[in-house]
């Protein structure tokens, strides 16, 4: 009966899918089988081998081709008469503007990063097109419906900022393996093989600044004819030996910490790995050289001992200089670059040994360094099915039955798939409710560039922002700017806020706008002199909608995209609290999960409001669940927003 009921709404619908990856492949297939006739699909990615275990529309022979295009062709094989329009492009491209979005009846997201999700959310709000959003990590998944004015938007709930680590944890006081990986990847690898002009905090901060910089100058430069093993040993001793000794000299640091031990290459590997050979045989062979292969190490799951790590370190370094000479100076870490992963694994493990942190296999280190998503086909298939069910409700305008659904790993109240009623829009959301924000910043020290990078781009997620102070334009990014405008804006970037024309000082209201996203927000500036380097590393604090609810920080969620699995369910007084995590996977950073608390009450009995639930949360509502159409309501972080209480 389903097909008859739905057929009218489905057949006339024009839908946009953003993302043709894990969820996207499943979604496109299920849409086609469900009789959708007009599907557009955007994806900028090309197919990789590690996609093939779950992105079933792709084959080995498609590696390197556009996901959107190959997915289209594959689906047309079993549904040749429908229309699928692929775009091998970034969803943030300017041609995908509000007018483009307006042609669709519903937008379905199968994305893997926060930035693109926020961008699509704003375009859907501006174009007034309903959005069905989704995400998966391992066996966990989530599907939500966002309809302007009816349900919350994607950004109504604060999204956790990508996980960053304080600089000195990485440079001086690592306590977890991930800190060593970040050091090896972002500092050491970047220093040796990346852009030499980039700032780099590799060298330990020392009270004796002159001493450290003087010593550092030469160690990293390869003279061009120096024996490569000798050169590698020099770097090894510098970063794992000398720098650790230097760090130990800052006694203050080690008062309450275990001291690291310096490691020198000769102590681990007294004999040379190869015969001294003055003439390095430089081949510039770009084929995938591997230190593991040349050392006979086969299993990426093995944990290497210190000597093996040392060998891999020296061998990988040598291979970069012999086989990939031309790339040096332009390399950035790539998880699919075998040699880079080998080097970073070895370096991270040697550093871990210094700091008495357990070693990890290449497989594990690769996952951490590359922020690799834990992904299986089954969760994606389930989530795609749920997206189509919600999409059909949206097309039928069946507002009352919209649900947000969680896929759980362990059942809660017997449920593995748990639907909950969507939330009302958050009145203090700066995206869908245009609520102003406030920014504490040192207006005498922070430059406009800092504001643009750390707030406008990173926090507000704007691509082509325009910054205004009353009627004066301070900054703009766009295609059609005059030369003198560009010069003017470039000059402004380097000025501190209080010296801009006109000056931005305490009490100023800045208007920031993204024309493509049709998103504007006002920011009240508050001057503040000092910031805590550890807790406020940006040197500025944005508040308003990004203010997270006072949730307990939970260290268990801190590492990696999928390091945590769903949790056990502590039960108290008949109330089950579940922390559901749906991970945001962002480009190069590790991010913690979004958390929502769910309170359920056994057998639909009335709530004892006096039970020991956090005061701010005890204003929740529940509905009796019946087996027919019953549902569970999540308590909202702002209970005044609760649907049943809202006055029209």
């Amino acid at each position, binding site marked *: 009966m*389903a097909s008859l009921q739905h057929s009218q709404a489905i057949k006339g619908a024009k839908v946009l899918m953003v993302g043709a990856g894990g969820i996207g492949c499943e979604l496109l297939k299920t849409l086609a089988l469900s009789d959708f006739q007009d599907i557009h699909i955007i994806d900028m990615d090309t197919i990789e081998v590690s996609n093939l275990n779950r992105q079933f529309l792709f084959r080995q022979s498609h590696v390197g081709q556009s996901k959107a295009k190959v997915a289209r062709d594959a689906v047309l094989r079993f549904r040749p008469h429908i229309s699928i329009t692929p775009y091998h492009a970034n969803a943030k491209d300017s041609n995908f503007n509000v007018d483009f979005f307006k042609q669709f009846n519903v937008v379905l997201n199968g994305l893997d990063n926060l930035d693109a999700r926020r961008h699509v959310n704003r375009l859907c709000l501006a174009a007034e097109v309903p959005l069905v959003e989704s995400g998966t990590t391992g066996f966990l998944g989530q599907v939500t419906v966002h309809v302007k004015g009816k349900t919350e938007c994607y950004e109504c709930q604060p999204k956790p900022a990508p996980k960053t680590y304080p600089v000195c944890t990485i440079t001086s006081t690592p306590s977890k393996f991930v800190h060593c990986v970040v050091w090896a990847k972002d500092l050491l690898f970047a220093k040796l093989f990346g852009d030499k002009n980039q700032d780099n905090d590799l060298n330990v901060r020392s009270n004796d600044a002159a001493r450290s910089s003087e010593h550092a100058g030469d160690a990293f430069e390869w003279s061009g004819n120096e024996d490569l093993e000798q050169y590698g040993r020099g770097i090894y001793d510098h970063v794992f030996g000398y720098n650790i000794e230097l760090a130990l000299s800052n006694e203050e640091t080690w008062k309450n910490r275990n001291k690291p031990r310096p490691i020198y290459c000769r102590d681990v590997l007294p004999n040379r790995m190869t015969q001294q050979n003055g003439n390095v045989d430089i081949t510039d062979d770009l084929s995938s050289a591997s230190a593991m292969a040349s050392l006979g190490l086969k299993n990426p799951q093995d944990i290497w001992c210190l000597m093996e790590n040392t060998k891999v370190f020296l061998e990988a370094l040598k291979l970069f200089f012999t086989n990939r000479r031309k790339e040096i100076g332009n390399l950035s870490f790539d998880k699919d670059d075998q040699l880079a992963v080998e080097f970073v694994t070895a370096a991270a493990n040697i550093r871990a040994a210094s700091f008495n942190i357990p070693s990890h296999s290449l497989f594990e280190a690769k996952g951490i360094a590359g922020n*690799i998503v834990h992904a299986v086909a089954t969760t994606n298939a*389930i989530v795609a099915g749920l997206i189509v069910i919600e999409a059909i409700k949206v097309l039928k305008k069946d507002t009352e039955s919209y649900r947000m659904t969680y896929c759980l790993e362990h059942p809660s109240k017997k449920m593995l798939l748990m639907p909950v009623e969507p939330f009302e829009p958050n009145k203090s959301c700066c995206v869908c409710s245009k609520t102003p924000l406030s920014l504490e910043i040192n207006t005498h020290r922070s430059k406009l560039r800092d504001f643009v990078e750390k707030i406008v781009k990173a926090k507000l997620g704007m691509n082509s922002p325009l910054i205004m102070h009353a009627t004066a334009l301070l900054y703009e990014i766009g295609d059609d700017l005059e030369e003198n405008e560009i010069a003017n804006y470039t000059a402004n970037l380097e000025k501190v806020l209080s010296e801009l024309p006109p000056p931005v000082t305490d009490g100023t209201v800045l208007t920031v706008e993204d024309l493509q996203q049709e998103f504007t927000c006002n920011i009240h500036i508050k001057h503040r002199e000092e910031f805590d380097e550890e807790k406020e590393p940006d040197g500025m604090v944005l508040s308003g909608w990004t203010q997270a609810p006072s949730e307990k920080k939970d260290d268990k969620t801190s590492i990696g995209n999928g390091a945590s699995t769903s949790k056990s369910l502590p039960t108290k007084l008949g109330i089950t609290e579940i922390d559901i995590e749906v991970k945001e996977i962002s480009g190069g950073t590790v991010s913690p999960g979004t958390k929502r608390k769910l309170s359920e009450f056994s057998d639909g009995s009335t709530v004892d409001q006096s039970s020991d639930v956090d005061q701010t949360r005890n204003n929740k509502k529940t509905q009796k669940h019946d087996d027919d159409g019953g549902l569970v309501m999540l308590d909202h972080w702002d209970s005044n927003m609760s649907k049943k209480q809202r006055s029209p």
Partner: protein
Amino acid sequence: MDGEELTEQETALYDRQIRVWGADAQRRLSKSHILVHGMKGTITEFCKNIVLAGVGSLTLVDDRAVTEEALSANFLMPPDENACSGKTLAELCRDSLNEFNPMVRVSVEKGDLASFGVEFFDKFDVVVISFCSLATKKLINERCRKLSKRVSFYTVDCRDCCGEIFVDLQKYNYAKKRQDGTTECELQYPSFQEAISVPWRSLPRKVSKLYLAMRVIERFEEDEGRKPGEICIEDLPAVLKLKKELCEAQSLNESHIPNALLERLVMGAREFPPVCAIIGGILGQEVIKAISGKGDPLKNFFFFDSVDGKGIIEDISDPRPKG
């Protein structure tokens, strides 16, 4: 860790899922042998999932010729019936599944499932049947249970917006992992016959209505000598009469099986693709859990109805101690 390591090719292909269930589980998967019957939408989804996951082999049983109905929720076949002429459903699906993952051996076994003897099932670790009569379900389940090794048995059915999975892992031991540590668990599963014989009165008060409704439909088709899914709206009065009789015999209030639900199941013999994807996904996860020994397997029924959106586990076992 047992024995052979994964090859470099396997590690590259399965990288993302090894990060979910580990290399050890991946090795076990690659040595497992699965049998499926009933190549409709849900089984097709399931096959896709486990072929991608990298099981050792998959054997398909379905001698039916291609029909328009069989194609409706199936993405493994070209939609042109003529292009499929001469081949059975299983053969057509095999050709597509083989492309999904060259490391999995996909083959077809011809014949009537009910005619296969006990020894036939000995070749498999997992048997999943769909589109089978009540009698066949019981029969195959009993044959799996006669073997000395454990053959995990599953039935799956989707009608309209609803789906049902039944699981029989016989006696299953596993390490239950939680935040506060690992505990050894033993689960004792009833057979399909034992499960559906549990008196309705002794079921939990809020047991899924879908469980009861599916039993009525199953019984109706059995009594009338119909093939599974061979039912239509004209049968509704007879189905409602049967419901009344069954409820009376079991002394259960009739309101536990809403007529509207039966009406949906009677009219929607055809599968709804999003539900196939969901049920095929859950079933895939369960089979992967059972083979790998990782994760809590569900015991022993799973229900999904897209009308309320809940995916519910029901434990339907005889509460009385064995005697």
